[in-house]
């Protein structure tokens, strides 16, 4: 029997959401201050309004709904799913008031795309956008990539912290407590921020010949979108704007760092480093990257778009790395990407669908699930081929020796299948609107796996239903379904429960 949620359930959920909104209100002071410093008064007003709404909801949640009981698993999941819906709604206020969107839903689309680190955009005329609004778009990707819940957990954890932590699609607790794990993740990010912005800023200033302040601006934006595998860019031509192999190289390093799980970061920092390369996840991602890279390069060679190997390799490598890490940066325009048919299209689509490592800022099915699926299939084949009573080894290495259990296989398979279903959902809707299969599938996978590469389907003139479906895909893909289903179950119980 379904039990209808009672007032106390709502108060618990409201109280935790209130705390998170207060943390986001504090974070949204940054673009407000930025707008004030650079005297962008129109965006300043919209940031003030957004901060006030976050603060008001936060205070109402915390003060009017005092915590009366512990946050259990289902409460935690509902908090996560709702937070990831409401924060983009309020975060879209400055985007909507900017005048750069044709309809309010488009602004929400961009806020959702930013927070989920997807990178698809419906923003018109980014080349004339205020720097503070660009900062907010990219900072949203940083908040979303790190995890807004994680940001809140750094400050408060309480007894429900672990639920919230896992609800935000993290499956690995690196240190004994959630708070210390959250702080470690922030420490890794801040170190990367310092090195990333410095390196990109220096390249911009010394190699590209930009003004110093613009170099730092480009460095900061590219860091936010690169390390958090978001893919927004302050200029309309993405990383192709810079026309620099050095800039692309530094960006590539940031994308790789972003797609690595924080567990791998921990092992690389504290050791033992050799264990990183023994991990099933690392081996899987290296294999799939190599496979999709070869596929894409062969496909590109067949298209004849590139006349020399150096050009083909440079462009192919960057695009496939961007796709596999779920970043969405590009160095070729969407109109050209749409022409990458055949094997090149296959390589890109597979890379996007597979995604980065678990517990990273990347999206997609994730390489650990791919590795475990392959291992399970191989074991099944062995079981069939070997004598009836032969034992097939189930051990694998992932931060230590582990065993492939039926429960684990089931969980991996379910999530992987849900991703496939999500990819097909958007592709099907696109097809129904008359968009060719290749383009529908590419854009759908890009939205669901939070990549952001586009072949031009995502456009302000796109059908509203398709836009809504892409938003759903971004949200569900980022949260890896569990929190989303919990919210749906909670809502159903509220309506039909007794």
């Amino acid at each position, binding site marked *: 029997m379904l039990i209808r949620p009672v007032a106390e359930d709502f108060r618990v959920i409201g109280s935790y959401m209130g705390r998170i909104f207060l943390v986001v209100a504090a974070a949204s002071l940054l673009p407000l201050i930025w707008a004030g410093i650079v005297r*962008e*008064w*129109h965006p*300043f*007003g*919209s940031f*003030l*309004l957004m*901060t*006030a709404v976050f*603060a*008001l909801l936060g*205070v*109402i949640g915390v*003060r*009017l709904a005092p915590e009366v009981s512990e946050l259990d698993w289902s409460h935690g999941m509902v908090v996560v799913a709702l937070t990831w819906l409401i924060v983009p709604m309020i975060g879209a206020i400055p985007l909507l*008031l900017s*005048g*750069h*969107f*044709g309809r309010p839903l488009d602004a929400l689309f961009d806020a959702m795309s930013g927070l989920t680190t997807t990178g698809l*955009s419906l923003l*018109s*005329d*980014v*080349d*004339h*956008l*205020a720097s503070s609004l660009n900062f907010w778009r990219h900072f949203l990707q940083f908040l979303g990539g790190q995890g807004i819940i994680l940001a809140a957990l750094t400050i408060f954890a309480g007894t429900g912290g672990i639920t919230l932590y896992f609800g935000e699609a993290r499956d690995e607790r690196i240190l004994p407590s959630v708070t210390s794990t959250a702080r470690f993740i922030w420490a890794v990010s801040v170190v990367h921020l310092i090195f990333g912005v410095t390196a990109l800023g220096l390249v911009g200033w010394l*190699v*590209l*010949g*930009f*003004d110093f302040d*613009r170099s730092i601006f*480009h460095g900061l934006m590219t860091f936010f979108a690169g390390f958090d595998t978001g893919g927004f860019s302050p*200029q*309309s*031509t993405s990383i*192709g*704007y810079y*026309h620099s*192999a050095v800039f692309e190289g530094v960006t590539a390093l940031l994308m790789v760092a972003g797609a690595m799980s924080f567990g791998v970061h921990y092992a690389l920092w504290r050791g033992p480093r050799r264990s990183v390369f023994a991990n099933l996840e690392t081996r899987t991602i290296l294999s799939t990257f190599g496979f999709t890279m070869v596929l894409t390069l062969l496909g590109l060679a067949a298209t004849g*778009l*590139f*006349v*020399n190997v*150096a*050009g*083909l*390799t*440079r*462009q192919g490598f960057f695009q496939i790395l961007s796709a596999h890490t779920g970043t969405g940066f590009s*160095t*070729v*325009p969407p*109109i050209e990407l749409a022409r990458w048919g055949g094997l090149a299209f296959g390589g890109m689509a597979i890379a996007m669908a597979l995604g980065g490592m678990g517990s990273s800022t990347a999206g997609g099915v994730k390489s650990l699930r791919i590795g475990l699926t392959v291992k399970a299939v191989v074991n099944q084949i062995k079981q069939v081929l070997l004598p009836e009573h032969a034992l097939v080894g189930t051990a694998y290495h992932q931060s230590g020796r582990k065993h492939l259990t039926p429960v684990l296989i089931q969980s991996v398979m379910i999530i992987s299948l849900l991703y496939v279903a999500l990819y097909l959902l958007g592709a099907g809707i696109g097809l129904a609107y008359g968009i060719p299969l290749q383009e529908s599938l590419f854009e759908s996978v890009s939205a669901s796996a939070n990549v952001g590469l586009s072949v031009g389907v995502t*456009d*302000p*003139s796109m059908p509203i239903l398709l836009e809504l479906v892409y938003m759903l895909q971004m949200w569900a893909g980022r949260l890896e379904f569990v929190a989303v289903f919990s919210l749906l179950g909670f809502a159903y119980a509220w309506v039909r429960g007794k």
Partner: protein
Amino acid sequence: MRRLIRVAVLAGVFLFIPVSASAAEEVSVAEILEMGADLAGEEVTVEGELVGDYGFRDDGSMWTQLNGDTYALQPIREGGRPAGANVGIALRIPLDLGGGLDPPGGYRYRGPIVRVTGIWKYHDTTRPGESYVEVQSLTVTEPGRQLDQEVDWTPIIFGLVLLVGAGAIGWLTRSGD
């Protein structure tokens, strides 16, 4: 004599043909992006707004972006309608042509509208895979200008009211603890 004139006319015609064939093709930025491979190595003339940054590199060139979209004619801040993404290509301009330009387009400026003629380098072999126009001549057809910035007081007032409300709720409920 007539024969001589005919020969001279024909010679002139044949001389003229190669001249017209090598003349720069007038194209839009969108056409360059659409027909990138077909125009590879061709001399093109294209018009648009300079946006983003002027990057002065050690090899004596200046890089920037040329946009050929509706925002070049009417920026959103001057009443232009949101009509989708920008349409831009890269320009590589010799330093002697790129000096003295107004600031590039951005939030505060509508960049200069220029008409450039140059070679369309599509997936250039010397700069692996990059595409851009190697500019040979540049004419400013409309200087850049500063964009007005009006202050909208409505969100500021609403924001302040909500902040006061949030503070009041926090203070009132705190005093009731």
